[in-house]
């Protein structure tokens, strides 16, 4: 055994060394006949439904691009890595995608916290990164190689403020936000600013902690203030329970919130208590525009399910990247970056996307309502 071991280890080391030499060192991502694009996603773990949706949309876009011949005469090869919805994993898998697979660009992630992990690595390696659906403003502040195709929370808050004031004609609104979530607090802050600027009044400002189950105390206080609407910028589990308890306390005014509501679990928990409530999101499969309908049809054919906002944003992130590579005429990171930064009125399935100076997408938001347990399209709000 002893005699065996060292030559074996040496052979192993040489093998690794040679494998290391094999990686493309000229232009990143330019394999012989394919352009490599890396994706990191939460395919398993606690946010798996979001990650899976996003990945399906991304994969569909890559397939669509390749069926029409790819870009620059080459097919796109999507390399997907799973971060298991865990902190710390994204950095590892993105480093691997860049240094060992030599991808030209990175797509991902849904959750802002995990996008924030990967962004500095992409920035440092000058590899463009597009996040499909991280709405926290800090993500793209990492550097000039980081983009996103979704709107950010200040916009979403303002959209709901204007919708509440102008469309629902609300004057006195109560806010119930989650003090444990940056997303909820940010959205609540921008909503309050927007609503007061529009001429309305915030008459009650209550909060809860994510994971709470009993909201009767806050809702009773809100009821006593007698608002004509309640803004609940939280995630679906708590929102479902809040709606149930509000209706049991005899609160009949509409509730409304942001994209954290968009999950089938929302209606399964809240049931009829949510009828006639509203939330803002990125996309509605009911939108009648041909781009959306073609996407919905293709998605249904491939996966036999209706796409949600995460799928649509995943699709747009890959489509926009392909468009930028085409415009750049090269797979060089700096050139793709410049092309991405110059994107104007890109026709995505989530609306026309224009990159602003901070590499955030300036694009419309969609407002949905809940009717008979289904999400129904109400209107599109332009930026």
């Amino acid at each position: 055994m002893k005699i065996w071991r060292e030559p074996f280890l040496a052979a192993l080391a040489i093998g690794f060394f040679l494998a290391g030499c094999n990686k493309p060192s000229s232009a990143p991502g330019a394999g012989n006949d394919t352009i490599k694009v890396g994706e990191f996603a939460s395919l398993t773990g606690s946010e798996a439904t979001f990650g899976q949706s996003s990945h399906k949309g991304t994969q569909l876009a890559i397939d669509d691009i390749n069926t029409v011949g790819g870009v620059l005469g080459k097919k796109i090869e999507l390399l997907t890595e799973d971060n298991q919805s865990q902190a710390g994993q994204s950095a590892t898998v993105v480093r691997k995608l860049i240094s060992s697979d030599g991808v030209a660009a990175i797509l991902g992630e849904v959750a802002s916290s995990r996008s924030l992990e990967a962004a500095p690595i992409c920035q440092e390696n000058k590899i463009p990164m597009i996040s499909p659906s991280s709405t926290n403003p800090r993500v793209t502040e990492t550097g000039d190689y980081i983009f996103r195709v979704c709107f950010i929370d200040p916009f979403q808050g303002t959209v709901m403020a204007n919708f509440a004031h102008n469309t629902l004609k609300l004057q006195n609104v109560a806010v119930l936000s989650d003090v444990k979530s940056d997303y909820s607090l940010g959205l609540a802050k921008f909503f309050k600013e927007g609503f007061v600027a529009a001429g309305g009044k915030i008459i009650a400002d209550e909060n809860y902690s994510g994971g709470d189950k009993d909201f009767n105390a806050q809702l009773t206080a809100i009821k006593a203030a007698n608002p004509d609407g309640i803004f609940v910028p939280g995630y679906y589990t708590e929102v479902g329970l809040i709606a149930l308890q509000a209706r049991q306390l005899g609160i009949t005014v509409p509730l409304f919130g942001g994209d954290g509501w968009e999950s089938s679990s929302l209606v399964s928990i809240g049931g009829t208590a949510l009828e006639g409530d509203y939330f803002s999101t990125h996309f509605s499969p009911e939108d009648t525009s041909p781009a959306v309908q073609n996407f919905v049809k293709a998605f249904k054919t491939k996966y036999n399910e209706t796409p949600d906002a995460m799928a649509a944003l995943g699709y747009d992130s890959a489509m926009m990247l392909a468009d930028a590579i085409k415009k750049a005429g090269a797979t060089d990171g700096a050139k793709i970056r410049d092309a991405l930064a110059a994107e104007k009125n890109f026709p995505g399935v989530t609306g026309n996307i224009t990159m602003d100076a901070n590499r955030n997408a300036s694009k419309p938001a969609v407002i949905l309502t809940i009717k008979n347990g289904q999400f129904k399209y109400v209107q599109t709000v332009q930026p």
Partner: protein
Amino acid sequence: MTEFLQQLINGLALGSILALIALGYTMVYGILRFINFAHGDVFMLGAFAGYYLAPKIAAVLPLPSIAGALVVMGISMAVCAALGVIIERFAYRPLRKQPKLTVLITAIGVSLFLEYAGQFVFGAAPKKFPAILPALPVTHLGGLSFNSNQIVVIAVTIFLLLALRFIVLKTKIGTAMRAVSFNPEAAALMGVNTDIVISFTFALGSALAAAAGILWAINYPAIDPLMGILPGIKAFVAAVLGGIGNLPGAALGGVIIGVTETLVSGYISSTYRDAIAFAVLILIMLVKPSGLLGKKEIEKV
């Protein structure tokens, strides 16, 4: 004034559930002098037992209905009672002669085991608890809203408290429980089978936890494997507040914690809710270290 009364009703409903859980802590402490930290997770398992039973019961009895709800609750209580006995038999009984700290650490281990095995078996995502009780239209009385679930919670809690009182004070096994609690060695010498009494105590406490789990799930119908942690801690605090080892004390403690929390969230800020609830605990402990209804115990050296 109406708002205040409404908050009191909210607090009473929340406190009733905490009281039911607190009884389990206090009974086990009374008999064995240790805190069964896995008790909050038995509460969670009670809710999940109901979740998996409801569709089976619905095949026999119409759901939601009062009879159906009673059957679901009864079977869940039986399941958890058996579980409580099993936990005691395999995790705590082998350590009975060991220092109390050993058993305490084991209890924490059992608690973590149930939580994470629960995540593995049931999945981590919250599940919608089915409607097993017919939801009556909300009753309004001079600006106050009584929802039927809150009334059910309070009524069931009062009923279970009276039943428990009957068992402990009027039955043979209850007398044996009190004897073991008073002095286990002497009770054993007098012919009380302490093993059976301890098993029965765990069964009773776990059944109450299961009832609390079902009531909780009826009121807040999103259940997940970690749902027992916070109510468990609060019920433990309630038991200490009322005087651990004392049954009416646990019920009183539960109601005090529930009402305090609700009033703090309603009038001050829910951010400080737990901080203030625990500050109340510290204040009461400073004035009365044995708890509100607890007896002073003289430590024999």
